[in-house]
């Protein structure tokens, strides 16, 4: 055996590598069992990032199905309510490149709340059935109303309404919701941020 190895250095290398491979493989295998972490399954983590508007703009019936689809490899840029920030968060989580929001699935807009013009409502319950989060209150032939604090602004109740009495109202800035904004580098006299993207924008 020893002579064989001495004679053919190739075997020496082979044995050494195979041996090392076995040792480290065993080590890794042991570590995988010993230090196993009960992590949050990836679908749950994705679902946590998604805005839970349940609007279906991504093409899935709700946020969780989309989370599952993302986990299966679907593009991460199909959630307009989550916006570019959401795409960024998903990209960070999944360690992929952050791509721009897919316009096909709608544009990022301010949060809206559905509002039923109550004197026009005929009480057909169609919107109640469409609402994914049970945010509409009412009974047959009785006027309905939206519980604004529960509404996700998904817009799904507008289409089914036979008398077209649902409006999507965007929340306006008020004294309570106002806050300082990050200084806008472009609006300043001199561009302070050293990304050349903004410089070209300026030039264009």
């Amino acid at each position, binding site marked *: 055996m020893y002579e064989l190895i001495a004679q053919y250095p190739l075997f020496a290398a082979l044995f050494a590598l195979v041996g090392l491979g076995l040792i480290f493989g065993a080590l890794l295998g042991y570590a995988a069992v010993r230090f196993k972490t009960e992590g949050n399954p990836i679908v749950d983590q994705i679902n946590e990032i998604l805005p839970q508007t349940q609007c279906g703009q991504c093409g899935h019936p709700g946020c969780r199905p989309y989370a599952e689809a993302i986990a299966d490899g679907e593009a991460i840029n199909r959630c307009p309510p989550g916006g570019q920030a959401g795409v960024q968060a998903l990209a960070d989580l999944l360690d992929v490149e952050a791509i721009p929001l897919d316009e096909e699935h709608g544009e990022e807009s301010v949060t809206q709340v559905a509002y039923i013009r109550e004197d026009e409502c005929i009480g057909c319950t169609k919107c109640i059935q469409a609402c994914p989060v049970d945010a509409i209150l009412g009974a047959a032939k009785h006027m309905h109303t939206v519980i604004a604090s529960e509404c996700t602004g998904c817009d799904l109740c507008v289409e089914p309404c036979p008398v077209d009495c649902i409006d999507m109202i965007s929340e306006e800035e008020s004294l309570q919701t106002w806050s*300082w904004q990050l200084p806008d580098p472009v609006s300043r006299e*001199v*561009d302070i941020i*050293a*990304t*050349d993207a903004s*410089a*070209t924008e*300026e*030039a264009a």
Partner: protein
Amino acid sequence: MALMRITSPHTHGPMSTRRVMQNVLLATVPGVVVLTHFFGFGTLVNIIWASILAIAFEALALSLRKRPLAFYLGDYSALVTAVLLGIALPPYSPWWLIAVGIASAILMAKHLYGGLGYNPFNPAMVGYVVLLISFPVQMTSWAAPRGVGELPGLLQALQACFTPAHFDAVTMATPLDVLKQNSSLLMDDLWQQNAQFGRWAGIGWEWASLAFLAGGLWLLYQRIFTWHAPVAMLMVLALMAALFYDGGSSGSGGSPLFHLLSGATMFGAFFIVTDPVSSAVSTRGRLVYGALIGLLTYLIRVYGNYPDAVAFAVLIMNFAAPFIDQYTQPRTYGHAKRGGESE
């Protein structure tokens, strides 16, 4: 009339980036004067040529990046880089050597990363190290000091820079170099055999170091930087030297005084290590940062391949700065434990 609406505070202190940079430039003056006195006009020519190039390269980079020239040139940062590199380069360096160095510093180390404030590495040291690795011959020959060799005049200095082929300078190894190459002699022998050794650390070097120290102390007084990083670096360097110096043999790496006053120690401690952009940010972080630079400087000087090591030590620690930051967050008011430590 519409009233202005801006965020507080509405008042501002007297400090500005331009003033910081101007102060740094001013603080180099004593050191440059001493260097010129002992080694001739070489350093001065270096600095002037480097400054011209630096402004040109900076302007080029800014215009390529479509930035307003006056606004960014007005911060004097390119000039500081040029002066620091000019001081660090051997006197009577040829023009192209300086050009390569400045190009590496301004274009590569600074603007490729996004300009002032965004560079992870000290630009002057990047320029220096690029040259040291690429042109070791030119970079390791230093002019002979006054009293040992003939000092060239201003004209000759210009000639050395722009027509290097026709210039034959009197160069000799620096004391650190000599120490590096002789490991089996007694210190006293070295001192006797080599004329460039002065009272403590080499003719010219010791006085230049003291001059840079004076400039640095002035900056400290002006509150341009805090004492933490330079003091930590000098202390650790001296401590290492004291630990390993056996009192006589050249193999043991030289006395603390020799290390403090020789080579780029003082210049590095007060003008390179204190570069805020590429160093650690908190006071504790700066202590660690400075101390590790001191340690690395000693290790590379005594056990490494290069006679002087400040540039390498600084660059290596530039790598480590974000890491140090992560673990040296100060204890915020009202917090019992250190914030970042638990991570």
